[in-house]
């Protein structure tokens, strides 16, 4: 990040877009703090909070003990008492440690207490495969959050969305779970601070198409885009929809797209069963069954723990080749 005050970046990494979002938000709102394991001195396991300690001091960028339940729990208490914490869980897999504080506390505070108070905080974490992290450091657990009323859920794929969705999450009263992807941090794109692209809760149609809708989010969006380029050469016009947020979920864009294309493939890195694609597939069936030409395909990771061996891990999640293959069959 050469000049933090620039408004437009021709090429910025996903990581720097996030850092910039936190930086700008913290400059605007002095009640925003960052807390988590190795977020201060280390700068975050994936570098997303690098240098923020230097800029904002140890009162606002706080290294915590390795206590995931209490990191989330303390952030909840701070959010109920005047601060707006950004709590970081180093890996989404650590939801396993923190799920009581996320699902039983954070998500339900406003409701249980009759609307008296909320816990306006952002829980940042990252998931996904690609680094041979194994079964406990590579999962995609967004459906756990989506299955819990009371939480907003954002999973941006592009730097511009990473910046703007995080900025938005740091302004609203709803607790937001913000899941990044470990292999997106080094990807690049443009960032226009003045152009949010689409509001929080709205999907982006990244590519218009006529023959099939490919609906996805997070890293798989980049796969979908590449697959759609290959498909185009074979005269298949795929519409690529980047959901960006899973709560609120932009049902309308999904439904309208499939009503037009009459075919859909839902793509994600999560497990197959009871997944976000399962939910989206239901929505499509319920709303578009009259026009569907083919069954909706959920293309996800396998229903097994994540393997470490690179050759196994690579084929454990969707591949571009298979996206192309399945899409062609759906369009056949």
């Amino acid at each position, binding site marked *: 990040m050469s000049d933090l005050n620039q408004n437009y970046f021709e090429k910025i990494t996903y990581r720097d877009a996030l850092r910039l979002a936190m930086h700008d938000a913290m400059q605007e709102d002095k*009640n925003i*703090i960052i807390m988590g394991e190795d977020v201060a001195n280390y700068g975050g396991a994936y570098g997303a909070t690098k240098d923020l300690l230097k800029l904002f001091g140890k*009162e606002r960028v706080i290294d*915590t*003990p390795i*206590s995931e*339940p*209490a990191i*989330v*729990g*303390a*952030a*909840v*208490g*701070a*959010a*109920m*008492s*005047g*601060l707006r*914490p950004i709590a970081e869980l180093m890996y989404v897999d650590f939801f396993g440690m923190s799920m*009581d*504080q996320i699902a*039983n*506390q954070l998500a339900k*505070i*406003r*409701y*249980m*207490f*009759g*609307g*008296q*108070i*909320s816990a306006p905080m952002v829980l940042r974490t990252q998931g996904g495969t690609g680094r041979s992290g194994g079964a406990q450091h590579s999962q995609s657990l967004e459906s756990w959050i989506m299955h819990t*009323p*009371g939480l*907003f859920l954002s999973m941006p794929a592009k730097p511009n969305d990473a910046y703007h969705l995080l900025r938005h999450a740091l302004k*609203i*009263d*709803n607790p937001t779970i913000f899941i990044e992807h470990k292999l997106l941090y080094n990807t690049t794109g443009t960032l226009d601070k003045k152009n949010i692209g689409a509001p929080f809760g709205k999907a982006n149609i990244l590519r218009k198409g006529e023959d099939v809708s490919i609906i996805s989010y997070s890293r798989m969006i980049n796969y979908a885009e590449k697959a759609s380029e290959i498909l185009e050469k074979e005269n298949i016009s795929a519409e690529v929809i980047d959901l960006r947020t899973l709560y*609120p979920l932009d049902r309308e864009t999904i439904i309208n797209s499939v009503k037009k294309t009459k075919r859909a493939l839902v793509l994600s890195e999560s497990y197959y069963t009871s997944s976000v694609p399962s939910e989206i597939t239901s929505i499509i069936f*319920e*709303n578009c069954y*009259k026009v569907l030409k083919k069954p909706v395909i959920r293309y996800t990771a396998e229903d097994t723990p994540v393997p470490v061996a690179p050759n196994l891990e690579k084929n454990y999640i969707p591949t571009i080749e298979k996206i192309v293959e399945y899409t062609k069959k759906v369009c056949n």
Partner: protein
Amino acid sequence: MSNTLLPKLYKTMKRIRTFEERVSELFIKGESAGTMLHLSIGEELGPACVGTAMQENDTFTTHHRGHGIFVARGGDPNRMLAEIAGKKDGYCKGKGGSMHIADMKLGHLGANAIVGGGIPTVVGAAMSYKYLKEERVSVAFFGDGAMQQGILYESMNMASLWKLPVVFCCINNQYGMGTKIENAVGVKDFSKRAESFGLNTLHINDLDVESAYHKSKDIIDSARKFKPGFIEIECYRFYGHARMDKSPYRDESEESEKRKLDPISFASNQMIKNNILDEDDIKKIDDDIMIEMDKAMEFAINSPINEETEIFKDVYSENDPLPVSLDEKINKILNN
């Protein structure tokens, strides 16, 4: 004698007990929302002494057996009973109930039905107070069951590490639901655990509420100066775990023996013995409390129920659309 707080503490304990008796009555009349009502009869000393030692702006979370603490911190019995009855006038519009009652105005950051669930909340609240330079202490109340939850020790460590204005207060009623403490812990000396985190500790194991008040106040005052503390108050849960529990796991003789250790009759006898109040004065206090709590019962029973649409409110902020009802969703699909 003139400086004694005993009448005030007595009154608080008596109000707690009478309140809990009304909760029980509400159940018997079929007016309570459900049966998950955890009474703190026999445990009044802790809420009274710690609740009174806290200052006006201090905040707290409680466990599921938390009615008494809220009464001690100024909770309005009308709105409390209405909440327990699941009514519109309750503190949480009847949507939280006995186990999730809360009131931000009185610093009640929430009762919790997950054992230990509300403990890290006070750590975060104290982080806010320290950062915002507000002179406030946040107290987590929990039972002996939570002493066996990992989150307590994560929270104690953070409070110690960051020198937070926090007090952890364990109301040890000797039972985790039906399991006696001897069957749940290897070492019963809870203060030692807290000491090892560098917390100021206090262990109360007698019925003298006024002395307990003074000792608790020292711990809370130190916490205000960023020396976090731990208080354990030993007591006995006079009745079952929840309203339906007849305590088959313990002898009646144990119950009748332990019920003799009653902090309320102890305080009453202390006041008479030391010529602080006479029997008539005490009766007057008791009668007034009866009237107050009877009125609360009436208020709760007569409070209106919620409109059905209340289900969908308060899930997300008021600026967001309400979640769509299932009926609307299904009919939309069927009419498609």
